């Protein structure tokens, strides 16, 4: 009897590993909250990759991919954890998410690690996530803010900005990026006149603007969210004439920024993780066909996050995150044949044949230890009330 049980259990296991199945991919993003205007395009990016893989029929002997969305709220860690637990209860073993750093840390520590779930975040950028104990389950298609801060400092210096005031949103993302920018800018010989936090969703930002104005500087770096206090402080600074030039990192870049301030922020610097190259162009075509905005921050990274998850499963020949997690770096980096967006079927075939691939994807993915993007950044400027791409760094 015992032998029979063992044998049937072993058969079940084997069948599970080899046969076609339905892979459940959770999209755990901030559909409500301070970055709610970005989330739909991020989700669309991941869904496009999932659909491409599923339709190809080449994933693990014809497995399909089903996506399900859940809301992280971006700011409420408890809500994010509860939503992620619901996904796990529904049978999800891999997540594209979270969107914001604080919420991502909470979900990783309290849901993903205890349940052995793999997470690839398209947009969580806090330096704290580089050093977290993740048991190899966490990756991100976005670079750490430690790098973004350096790029911000370089660009500011290149434009002849010698002194800046910094205002940052009072959370892991804001503090992390503000600190790394300050360190890099001071190391390059610049002066930071003040670095002060602002809270999101407050009634009035006069006090913050007054303090920043008194400190002064050639430019104001707004390390905040475009749907929240970041815009409030920018508005105040423009109205009182305290600053005319601004430095906007990724949380502020988006249509909402130019539609709100238009020519008022003419000549300001915008920086967000994004890449140029063949992958980018391919991704733009693909997005146009799927009907979403490819220039929206992190939608390319979300496409890559979903693609990396599915390709690593193919490489491991198993949808079990415990096996797939060890293949992510291998799939993402050289050596191997380069895979661009829209070529996921080819990637799956090559992996099935045992050939190594180098996934380039929409954002020129190059993962460095401990599993995060090396980072390519797009510099934009605001000209005639529109975001204009200057170059890539």
């Amino acid at each position: 009897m015992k032998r029979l049980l063992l044998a049937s259990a072993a058969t079940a296991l084997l069948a599970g590993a080899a046969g076609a199945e339905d892979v459940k991919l959770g999209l755990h993003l901030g559909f409500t909250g301070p970055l709610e205007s970005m989330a739909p395009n991020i989700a669309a990016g991941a869904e496009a990759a999932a659909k491409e893989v599923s339709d190809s029929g080449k994933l693990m002997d014809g497995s399909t991919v089903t996506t399900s969305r859940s809301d992280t709220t971006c700011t409420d860690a408890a809500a994010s954890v509860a939503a992620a637990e619901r996904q796990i209860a529904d049978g999800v073993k891999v997540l594209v998410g979270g969107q914001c750093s604080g919420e991502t840390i909470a979900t990783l520590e309290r849901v993903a690690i205890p349940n052995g779930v793999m997470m690839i975040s398209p947009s969580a950028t806090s330096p704290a996530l580089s050093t977290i104990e993740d048991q190899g389950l966490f990756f991100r298609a976005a670079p750490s803010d430690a790098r973004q801060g350096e790029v911000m400092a370089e660009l500011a210096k290149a434009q002849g900005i010698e002194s800046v005031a910094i205002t940052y949103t009072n959370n892991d993302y804001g503090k992390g990026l503000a600190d790394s920018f300050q360190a890099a800018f001071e190391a390059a010989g610049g002066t930071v006149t003040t670095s002060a936090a602002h809270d999101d969703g407050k009634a009035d930002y006069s006090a913050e603007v007054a303090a920043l104005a008194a400190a002064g500087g050639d430019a104001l770096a707004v390390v905040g969210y475009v749907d929240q206090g970041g815009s409030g402080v920018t508005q105040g600074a423009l109205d009182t004439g305290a600053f005319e030039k601004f430095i906007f990192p990724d949380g502020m870049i988006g249509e909402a920024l130019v539609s709100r301030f238009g020519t008022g922020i003419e000549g300001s610097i915008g920086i967000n993780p994004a890449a140029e190259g063949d992958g980018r162009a391919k991704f733009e075509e693909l997005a146009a066909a799927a009907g979403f905005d490819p220039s929206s921050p992190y939608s390319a990274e979300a496409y890559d996050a979903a693609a990396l998850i599915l390709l690593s499963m193919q490489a491991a020949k198993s949808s079990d995150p415990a096996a797939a997690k060890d293949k992510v770096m291998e799939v993402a980096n050289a050596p191997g044949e380069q895979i661009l967006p829209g070529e996921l079927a080819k990637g799956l075939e090559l992996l099935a044949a045992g050939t190594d691939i180098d996934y380039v994807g929409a954002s020129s993915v190059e993962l460095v230890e401990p599993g995060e993007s090396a980072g390519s950044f797009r510099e934009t400027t605001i000209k005639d009330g529109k975001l204009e791409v200057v170059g890539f760094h």
Partner: protein
Amino acid sequence: MDILNALVAFLNFVFIPAAAYGAQLALGALGVTLIYGILRFSNFAHGDTMAFGAAMTIFATWALQAIGVSIYPLPTALLALPFGIAATALLALGTDRVVYRYYRQKKSDPIILVMASVGVMFIMNGLTRVLIGVDEIRFDDGARFVIDVRSFREWTGLTEGLALRTTQLITLVVAVLVVWALFWFLNRTRSGKAMRAYSDNEDLALLSGIDPERVVRMTWIIAAALATIAGALYGLDKAFKPFNYFQILLPIFAAAIVGGLGSPIGAIAGGFIVAFSEVAITYPWKKVAEYLGFDTGSAMLQLMSTEYKFAVSFVILIVVLLFRPTGLFRGKAY
């Protein structure tokens, strides 16, 4: 010249923003204090009544804009205010009929009414979001500035600029008019006197033939009008976002309590005290001091960092409650 620069910097960054914010808080606190004085409970739904009133005003503004009505350079929303007030007054009267009247007739403790108002707050909260959505809405279509920084600099030749937004000026002017009208109503008209009598002593007012239900209805209508005006002005000046009205409830209550709950003059004073202390205590005085000829070195002359601005209102609140529990202007305590 340098004294002028110091004055302009002070006006631009401290006085004008704090005065406009203070007026917004004062109008909100007046509504809270009126309900406390006459209906004898702290109405936590006031912030969301403001949001609802502002939302209704926005709908009326859109309707007016659609038929091409404009009072440029003033924002169309000012014309839409009466519609917003009417809709909000109906909601307030309806809420009173369905919720508060029952507890009033049972002569429930004030704390029960307060808890009921928390429930009403959540329902109004949802109602506003269902009707107009959660997104930020900007409905200020008038001229943006009365004085803007660039032309002020060119005109005066000073290094410091001065900005006065149209909405800030409107907020201050409307606040003064509303306060004057409210005091005239309370002190000079029969209905106003009836309300004050009811507030002072309910039983005695009943004996002298004052209809309590009429007083209650009038209180709700006035409170709804104050909430709508405060909500719409705040939305005009900043931007309408339902969530922000929930946040503003805290400073409004601080203002009402500092001034003395139940005292209209206290509510106004409280609004300005809270607003000015939030801005002035966290303002780095370095620039102003340097214009006045003091060498400050590298010191910012900032008493507290801006993260603590809410703490400022609460410290004032605690000090007032400790040393003068009924508020600066001797409010009521039930």
